[in-house]
């Protein structure tokens, strides 16, 4: 999909100011590139057969069943039981970092909007929670097409704060969204890992499918700084004056340890995990989502 993907790079998407248009552009561009893909239409999925009663749409009579069993059955679809996808978007201070086309916050918002648009386009219900040290905005689950606007408003948070422990936040979310659904956490996860894993475990225990979109900037992954530099903490008052070249190896080791810990934690809790660089094309999150849906479908069938 090279032709379509080149329009999905952060540099290209950055030019579209409105988030809803961005989301539409990304999703439509993504889907147009995948129009032959098996993912298309997965939201209208077969669920079960039911005896035909008067008034049912004869289009849904399963003629294969009639041929085998000589009785009329209609197919029931997932449409009847809509997917509830909740976007948990981290809007804390640490998400404001980024020297590329988009910072982590912008990137997270864009993929949240894209996912929301995709879900709504497939008749699924979409909810959204933005949080930093606490839940800042909550948007309930809706399937209306214009519900995307509400989701986008929830993402616009000023005066971001430090996030310390994600457990209370995730616990609050489980209480807000008690029905089973898909929780899509979009964050840099730069917080207490223990709380994070406890929160994820809680979400899973409540029957949610959980996807973690781990958004990090290239600088955070590669640490390409040279020359004397002063690092001021975005979420902490710490200041480090150093020659970054000298600390690079130690930093990268710590970062890799962190990523490995997160990945293992997610795997342990049966949580899907995707690491996203802010320099990556924005369809990566959609691909990850659809891959997850397919996996879920297979899991359900199995």
């Amino acid at each position, binding site marked *: 999909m090279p032709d379509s993907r080149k329009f999905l790079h952060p540099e290209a998407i950055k030019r579209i100011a409105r988030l809803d248009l961005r989301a539409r552009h990304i999703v439509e561009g993504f889907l147009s590139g995948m129009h032959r893909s098996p993912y298309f239409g997965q939201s209208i999925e077969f669920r079960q057969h039911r005896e035909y009663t008067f008034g049912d749409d004869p289009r849904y009579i399963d003629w294969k069943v009639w041929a085998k069993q000589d009785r009329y059955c209609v197919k029931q679809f997932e449409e009847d039981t809509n997917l509830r996808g909740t976007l948990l978007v981290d809007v804390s201070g640490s998400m404001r970092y980024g020297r590329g086309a988009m910072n982590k916050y912008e990137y997270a918002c864009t993929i949240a909007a894209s996912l929301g648009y995709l879900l709504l386009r497939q008749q699924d219900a979409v909810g959204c929670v933005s949080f930093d040290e606490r839940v800042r905005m909550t948007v309930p689950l809706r399937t209306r097409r214009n519900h995307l606007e509400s989701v986008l408003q929830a993402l616009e948070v000023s005066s971001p704060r430090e996030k310390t422990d994600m457990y209370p936040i995730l616990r609050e979310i489980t209480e807000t969204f008690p029905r089973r659904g898909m929780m899509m956490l979009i964050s840099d996860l730069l917080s207490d890992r223990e709380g994070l894993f406890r929160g994820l475990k809680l979400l899973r225990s409540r029957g949610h499918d959980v996807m973690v979109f781990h958004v990090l900037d290239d600088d*955070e992954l590669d640490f390409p700084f040279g020359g004397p530099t002063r690092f001021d903490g975005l979420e902490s008052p710490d200041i480090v004056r*150093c020659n970054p070249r000298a600390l690079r190896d130690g930093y990268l080791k710590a970062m890799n340890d962190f990523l490995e810990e997160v990945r293992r934690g997610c795997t342990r809790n049966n949580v899907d995990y*995707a690491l996203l660089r802010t320099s990556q094309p924005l369809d990566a999150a959609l691909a990850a989502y659809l891959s997850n849906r397919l996996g879920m479908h297979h899991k359900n069938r199995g």
Partner: protein
Amino acid sequence: MLPLVHPFTWALSLIAIPVVIHLINMMRHQRVEWAAMEFLLLSQKKHRTWVILKQLLLLLLRMLAIAGVVLALAQPLLPDRWGNFLGSQPTHHIVVLDDSFSMSDHWGDTTAFDRAKKVLERLGASVVHPQQPQSFTLLRLSHCGMFGEGTKPDFHKEKVDSEFAVRLTEKLQSMQVSETAAEPLPALEAVRQALSEDTGERRIVYFLSDFRARQWDKPDELKKRLLQLDESHAEIRLIDCVAGDASRPNLAITSLEPEEGIRAAGVRWRMQITVRNFGPTSVRNIPVYWSADGKAGPQVVIDEIPAGDTARQWFDVVFPTAGEHLLSAHLDADAVLADNVRHARIDLPVDVPVLLVDGEPAARDSKFVAWSLVPGGEVRTGVRAWIETPRYLALKPLDEFGAISVANVDRLDRSAIEALEKYVSAGGGLIFFVGPQTRSDFVNRELYRDGKGLFPVPLANPESLPVDTLDKTPDVQSGEHFIFRFLGNHRADHLSKILVKQYFTVSPDWIAKNDPSTRVIAQLRNRAPLLVEKSHGRGRVMAFLSTASPSWNNWASNSETVSFPVVVQEIVAYLSHRPSTGASYLVGEPIAVKLDPAKYQPTIHFAGPGGGPSATIDAAVDAPAKGASNQLAASFARTEKSGFYEALLTQTTGKGETRHYAVNVDPAEGDLKALAGAELAARLAPAVKYQFDYADSFETKIDETAGRNLGDLLIYLLIAALIGEQLLAWSLGYHPIGSNKASSRRAAPLMQGGAL
């Protein structure tokens, strides 16, 4: 404190550059608001100490590298007490000073020798160091095996103390360039011998010279000696005192000697002077000044001498009295003065005795020869001739005769033949005239002896030259020869008047070109040889294959030509010419004097030229060895200057007598073509390890001789510091290409390794 050359001292402040750069970078640091502080703080906590240490080390290495560059350029020395502390040896400075007369080459107000002395003065002052033992040897080339003195250094391992510089300066002030053409080889050999034993001292051999191409163009032996010095752990420093000026204009008188001819009192004869142009361009109109017995003669001019070529000029001289006469010639001043002068001593007899031996009692042939040589009247030829029978040859010594003529003899005694052979071998001149009494069998058997004897050709028979009235070819034909010089361009006219009736034929087996020692001077119309010349030993022999008298030809009695007496006189002049021996020496060569003990007392007083007290040297007779001739032999070796040396003799009767000896410089030394540093390197390097400097530039860095030069060590340290700096900088650095790959490699598994 390290002694530094001043211009480099300030440069040490450059070591602050890395610190300044560091401070500037600190001031210009970038500010980043960073999210992942947790990992940064973790890394800093973990590596802080090691990072600071490495950064300090890097800073130190960079400062060291700059200091290393500065110090390597400054060529610092590790002197005195520091050197001793590190086990530095005492230093022996050996200076070999070229004082051959080419070092008197002057330009402006200085000479090559003056430059060498300045270098020496500076060197002497710089080696004075009270804490480190230093010794100094100064050896001049002219003091190595010359003047019969062996090697005589001016300083020999002289201990260098605070007064040394003064002593050296005093020595240098009295030091003059010699007039010798001293070679460097004996001096280097002397130094090699002196350094053959390893005394544990540091040795520096300085060779101050002009490096003339004459000696250094093919320096195989010199290279060998220098290599030997190198093996003796001596540091060799070659110092060029003429700044590599490859070819300088210089004229030199290469010879001053009499031309062939009869030299006697009252007779006019010619001196020949030869001048060589050693310069790169042709020289025109060169005046040559000469004097005889102290009286200046009219100057002669040489029209042109091409570059690198020689030219000759002659001047006539007449001395009314017999005995020693002193002649000198000189040129105008040029680059080197010593070779512009030439001296010659000429011994003039009252007349030249010529013995005429005739086999006929009437001596008709010899009388014609005698009349030609001594015509009588007021005409003075300088020749005294008398006629004797062949017996005279065996009875009397022949050495005194300038030339001998043997005419029309039928036979000679064996003793007479031996006497003649001895006479000719020693340089005498002999001419044979054949005649009716000449017997070819005797001549061939006793005198020709298959070419080993005196007679130039084997004879056959006397034959008549048939008269051909139709043939206008002259009876006698000749090529160019000294004996015809006065006939000049009229030689053929004069000789064409001669009619030859009879002559002795040469054996048909004899072919002139097969005998390189023999030359046919004149031949007959039928190409039969008439006058033949041969060299025998150091002397010359001629054979005239017809009679001297008008018996077989009309030459002597021909009224149409007077060429007979002229040619006979020239023949005698040619035969009586002796190479001048024993009267001229080169500077440095010992004057050899031989005396008859019956006539002279053994004590000889020699006096050098100049007349000053310092030039007068007493010399005793070395060894009154009695040779075959029963002569006393004496030798005077101290011929240090060119000029006339006097030997004051005392006869047994008590009467004093003075002999003069001309001593001249070796004109070859006047070739001033010198080798520049690169040319010298092409001949010596890389086999010979040496340091080459021009005198001027060496003066500025002469202080380095004061101690152990740390230049090389600093270069190695600098290289080590730079390598260390690069390695450390690499380990501390960020390398985007590698790291991007690494990070992408790291990132990829994370994407794949997730639960997706």
